[in-house]
């Protein structure tokens, strides 16, 4: 097995045992990137100098006998929506094409303190708006399992980089499924933590009541390891919860027998590709073998999650993206302008891509006078109904199960003529963000030769139980560790 094929945990063990150095690990992924990145195009920016400097520092500390954090020396990538001091951060948009943040996001500070070398910033749908990474202003990222297909989105670059062994783990962000869906399409683990579990300070905001940062990893243990490092209350993000943070890795062990899993009827029926449904139901059967009782459960308002999300998210985005006015940072128009407003209007029109412009306009519309009550307020009430469905379901069940996406990865360009059809693919993931729950995607098989993920949902702040069940499933089911035929 090549060094770059190891999981983060396996590498960490070798580093701790001094079998390998962090510099060697960085060199291994650097060679791997050189070999496959021409095809995958996962990265918008590669940061080898930064990575090598960090790796060297960690190796020195280890050689001096210092006790190091578990992830020290393990190379990783960041979705380009997360601010890195001194390193260009574009959000996949021309409006931030030359933006260099003067500060690190909290998660970057935490990973830096943990000694992890950053190898690059990963491609994404512009401002995290999209489900295929095709909305990036810069490049198309390809799925390592089939280079003619999308890696999913909006964290497609992060997912492709991990699936292609171009880094040992990555961070993405998830507003409507943007970690879980690319995780599923690329055959890796993607975890969206509970809203408030991980600080959003330094995460460029799309929809502030829905966004969360989370890990994309080669297996569930790695996700637990990363969550241990990035989770926690942050005074600089007042939406982080002051809750206890258990050791998510320690929580992995232990039997799952006796747990109850609810298979969500509304999300496993019509509209789901039969191959996907098959994988999900087989996964439930594996859980039954482990002593988990699986039954059907209904979420009566699940079908309203799509319209609800596509009112709330654009509304919040229109507010969050108002800051891109060309005054203090970002693109400013070079065209002659009549006045201030003209400067804003031209800068924004030039800098934002079509999907972003559409969502801003939608959001502005639903918040405008005369429509606010009918649209936005109504959607917030529907959101309550969706959340209540989950509360009721979790009275009877420890976790819920459903697909991550209705289909495996589709072809690049397949949805170009009908963006609405692309959004329909989000039906399984959106309800989770509306309710603020933790959920993950774990590989559960293949359909037409393409990876399929099982989605597991848990009550707020129940990541320990979620990860334990997903870990038990993964170890028993045998899909973990499959690699795409990339660079072979």
């Amino acid at each position, binding site marked *: 097995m090549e060094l770059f094929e190891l999981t983060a945990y396996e590498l960490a063990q070798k580093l701790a045992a001094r079998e390998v150095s962090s510099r060697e690990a960085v060199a291994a992924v650097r060679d791997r990137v050189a070999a496959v990145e021409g095809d995958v195009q996962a990265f918008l920016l590669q940061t080898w100098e930064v990575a090598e400097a960090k790796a060297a520092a960690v190796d020195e500390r280890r050689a001096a006998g210092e006790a190091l954090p578990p992830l020290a020396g393990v190379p990783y990538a960041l979705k380009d929506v997360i601010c890195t001091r001194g390193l260009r951060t574009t959000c996949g948009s021309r409006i931030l094409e*030359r*933006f*260099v943040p*003067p*500060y690190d996001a909290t998660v970057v500070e935490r990973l830096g303190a943990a000694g992890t070398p950053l190898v690059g910033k990963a491609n994404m749908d512009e401002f995290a708006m999209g489900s295929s990474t095709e909305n990036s202003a810069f490049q198309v990222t390809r799925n390592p399992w089939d280079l003619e297909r999308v890696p999913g989105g909006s964290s497609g670059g992060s997912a492709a980089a991990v699936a292609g062994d171009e880094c040992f783990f990555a961070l993405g962000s998830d507003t409507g499924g943007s970690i879980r869906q690319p995780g599923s399409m690329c055959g890796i683990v993607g975890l969206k933590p509970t*809203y408030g579990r991980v600080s959003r300070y330094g995460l460029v905001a799309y929809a502030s*009541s829905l966004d969360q940062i989370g890990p994309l990893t080669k297996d569930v243990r790695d996700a637990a390891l990363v969550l241990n490092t990035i989770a926690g209350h942050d*005074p600089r993000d*007042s*939406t982080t919860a002051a809750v206890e943070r258990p050791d998510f890795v320690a929580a992995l062990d232990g039997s799952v027998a006796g747990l109850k899993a609810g298979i969500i009827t509304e999300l496993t029926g019509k509209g789901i590709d039969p191959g996907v449904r098959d994988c999900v139901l087989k996964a439930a059967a594996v859980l039954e073998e482990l002593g988990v009782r699986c039954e059907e459960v209904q979420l009566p308002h699940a079908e*309203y999650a799509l*319209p*609800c999300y*596509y*009112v709330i998210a654009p509304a919040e985005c*229109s507010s969050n993206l*108002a800051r891109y006015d*060309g*005054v*203090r*940072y*970002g693109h*400013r128009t070079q065209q002659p302008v*009549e*006045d*201030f*407003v*003209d*400067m*804003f*209007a*031209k800068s*924004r*029109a030039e800098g934002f891509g*079509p999907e972003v*412009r*559409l969502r*801003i*306009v*939608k959001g*502005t*519309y639903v918040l*405008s006078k005369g429509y606010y009550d009918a*649209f936005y*307020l*109504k*959607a*917030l*009430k*529907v*959101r*309550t*109904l969706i*959340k209540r469905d989950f509360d009721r379901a979790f009275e009877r069940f420890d976790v819920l199960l459903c697909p991550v996406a209705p289909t495996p990865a589709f072809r690049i360009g397949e949805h170009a003529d009908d963006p*609405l059809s692309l959004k329909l693919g989000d039906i399984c993931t959106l309800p989770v963000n*509306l*309710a*603020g*729950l933790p959920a993950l995607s774990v590989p559960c098989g293949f359909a037409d030769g393409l990876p399929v993920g099982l989605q597991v949902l848990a009550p*707020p702040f129940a990541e320990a139980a979620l990860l334990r069940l997903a870990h038990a499933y993964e170890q028993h089911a045998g899909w973990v560790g499959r690699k795409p035929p990339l660079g072979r």
Partner: protein
Amino acid sequence: MDIVSREDVLHVAHLARLALSDEEIARLQRELNRIMEHFAELQQLDTEGVPPTSHPLPMTNVFREDEVRPSLSVDEVLQNAPDRCDEFFRVPRIVDTEA
């Protein structure tokens, strides 16, 4: 018949400070009329007496002591300025005109 008119689109574009081409206006008009379909779906639900959820976590205002803490330097703040003039961001003159 379209519920969302071209004028509606122009109004919203102005609110959002977005300059739009004619094709874009037409495209956005189409998409906004589609959003009316979403609205119709949501209208199906009885939400009488249901409180709105703006945040998934029960949250109240988070305060801290009003103490001065370190922040970014002026240079750091200005380092991405499209047009910097000493300690200022330079912008087009604010003309005394209807905005």
